[in-house]
């Protein structure tokens, strides 16, 4: 048996039963990383020594009965925009090339409490700005299904690491699809929870009103289990929501009888790859056969989500990224004349082109004379989009559609035309604008052998609906390991 084929929950059970030690599992993951990194490059930082020490410590805590949860002892990879005390956290940017936080993100602390062993930090698009993980300052991550293709982004490193079986699960973040789209491209499962469910404290902000942390894993059971572990009300995050129904694993039930599922007709039109469309509709059929009531409907406003999203995300980013200035941490240019020159040179040398592009756009749309026309207009559009979803959820429990219009493009294809790359987020961004939960899970391969992702969207605070639908669908399939995983 290859240990890394196990899901996180399966491994957790074996560790609990004493069949596998935490050190064995950690060693196995570190060996897998060693063997596969050259091909996939999922990681920015690998903490071999820290992980092995932690493994010993966790084993003791399991042995003495302190740690009893399902994730105790299971090794995890963390997206590099989540602060980890004492461990390099770069956001895949040169501007944070040497940043070692003195605090740990609340979501990661929650995992540590559950007995997680952190293997290292995963690669991402710089500051989570991108859909391919090609904008990283530390090299490109490749798709474990075909290394000539991108893994998606921005949580491409996390999704590739799970798909390549370099770790048992990972944390990602999702501002406009950054968990769901790469999960779709890499053939793994990822959840973007309702805004406010997982604390953002320690998550290096991109678009504060849109960012959420979520799990990436091999299956729905893992994702529900991980989400349950990282969810918490955090008084350090003012946008954190006090929730009671966070026993997400209770929704792991193979029953969708009577569940109302709507497919937005607007999601099936122009731009959608026919193979993706076929797979999505087949998945809908499967759910229907299991007793769900499935119908198509008009969601409306779909084409306005991307422009509204890019205005809001870029505006917030331009402000959030102002703190990277070479004064308190990170990169400072070597030679400069005076304060403003130091700012400009440090930032211009420290940020990559995509980040600079979005900061420029964000600064522009907020600047005097444009605020109303762009920023307020986008916030008004957001309100309309929210209303459209509210209306849809009066009728449906779950909205079903693709996570992305295509399967993973080839490396280098997307960056040349940013607008086209942005359009790839058409099915994911509106979920962030409306604060909704969404899950992406594998629903087949295209003719090139690349994974296709099925997206299920729920109403706010209704993760359980999408988890139940996803779980029921998943029962009709077997997990397909990527070629790199099988190496």
């Amino acid at each position: 048996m290859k240990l890394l084929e196990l899901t996180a929950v399966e491994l957790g059970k074996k560790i609990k039963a004493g069949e596998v030690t935490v050190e064995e599992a950690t060693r196995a993951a570190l060996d897998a990383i060693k063997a596969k990194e050259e091909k996939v490059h999922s990681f920015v930082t690998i903490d071999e020594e820290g992980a092995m020490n932690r493994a010993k410590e966790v084993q003791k805590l399991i042995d003495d009965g302190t740690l009893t949860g399902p994730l105790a002892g299971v090794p995890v990879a963390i997206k590099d925009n989540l602060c980890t005390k004492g461990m390099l956290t770069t956001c895949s940017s040169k501007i944070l090339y040497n940043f070692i936080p003195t605090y740990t993100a609340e979501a990661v602390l929650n995992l540590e409490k559950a007995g997680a062993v952190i293997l290292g930090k995963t690669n991402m698009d710089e500051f989570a700005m991108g859909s391919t993980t090609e904008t990283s300052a530390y090299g490109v991550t490749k798709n474990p299904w075909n290394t000539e293709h991108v893994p998606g982004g921005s949580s491409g490193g996390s999704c590739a690491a799970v798909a390549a079986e370099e770790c048992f699960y990972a944390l990602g973040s999702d501002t406009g699809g950054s968990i769901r789209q790469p999960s779709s491209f890499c053939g793994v499962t990822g959840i973007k929870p309702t805004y406010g469910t997982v604390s953002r404290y320690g998550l290096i902000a991109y678009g504060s009103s849109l960012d959420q942390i979520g799990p990436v894993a091999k299956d729905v059971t893992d994702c529900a289990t991980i989400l349950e572990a990282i969810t918490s009300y955090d008084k350090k995050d003012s946008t954190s929501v006090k929730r009671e129904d966070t026993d997400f694993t209770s929704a792991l039930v193979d029953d969708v009888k009577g569940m109302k599922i709507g497919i937005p007709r607007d999601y099936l039109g122009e731009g959608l790859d026919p193979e993706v469309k076929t797979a999505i509709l087949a998945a809908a059929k499967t759910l229907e056969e299991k007793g769900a009531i499935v119908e198509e409907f008009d969601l409306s406003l779909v084409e306005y989500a991307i422009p509204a999203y890019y205005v809001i995300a870029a505006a917030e980013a331009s402000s959030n990224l102002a703190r990277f200035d070479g004064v308190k941490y990170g990169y400072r240019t070597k030679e400069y004349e005076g304060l403003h020159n130091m700012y400009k040179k440090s930032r211009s040398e420290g940020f990559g082109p995509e980040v600079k592009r979005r900061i420029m756009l964000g600064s522009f749309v907020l600047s005097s004379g444009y605020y109303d026309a762009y920023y307020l207009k986008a916030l008004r559009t957001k309100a309309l989009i929210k209303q459209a979803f509210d209306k849809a959820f009066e009728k449906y429990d779950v909205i079903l559609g693709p996570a992305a219009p295509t399967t993973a493009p080839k490396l280098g294809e997307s960056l040349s035309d940013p607008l086209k790359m942005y359009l790839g987020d058409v099915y994911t961004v509106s979920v962030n604008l409306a604060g909704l939960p969404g899950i992406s899970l594998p629903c087949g391969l295209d003719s090139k052998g690349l994974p296709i992702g099925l997206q299920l969207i729920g109403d706010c605070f209704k993760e359980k609906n999408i988890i139940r639908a996803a779980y029921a669908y998943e029962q009709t399939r077997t997990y397909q390991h990527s070629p790199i995983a099988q190496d």
Partner: protein
Amino acid sequence: MANVISDETMGYVGILAKLELSEEEKQAAKKDMESMLDYIDKLNELDTSKVEPMSHVFPVKNVFREDVVENGDGGEATLANAPEKRDRAFVVPKTVDQ
């Protein structure tokens, strides 16, 4: 192309954002920004005159802290990543206005 961004505007936004783009970068960024803005102009098709701008999706309100000191000496952690420090302070180029 409906939106034309002048070099002057690019320079101005560069001052706001504290970014100094190379000529090549500037031209590329200008082109991208113009096409993004054209695309964003699509929002004008929507009549939003009766819609309130929505910044928070949920009506969460009144999240407060009590006025109690909980943090101690943060000095070491605060300065741990400083590119340049002296006498427990961050060092920056002189800021006195000329």
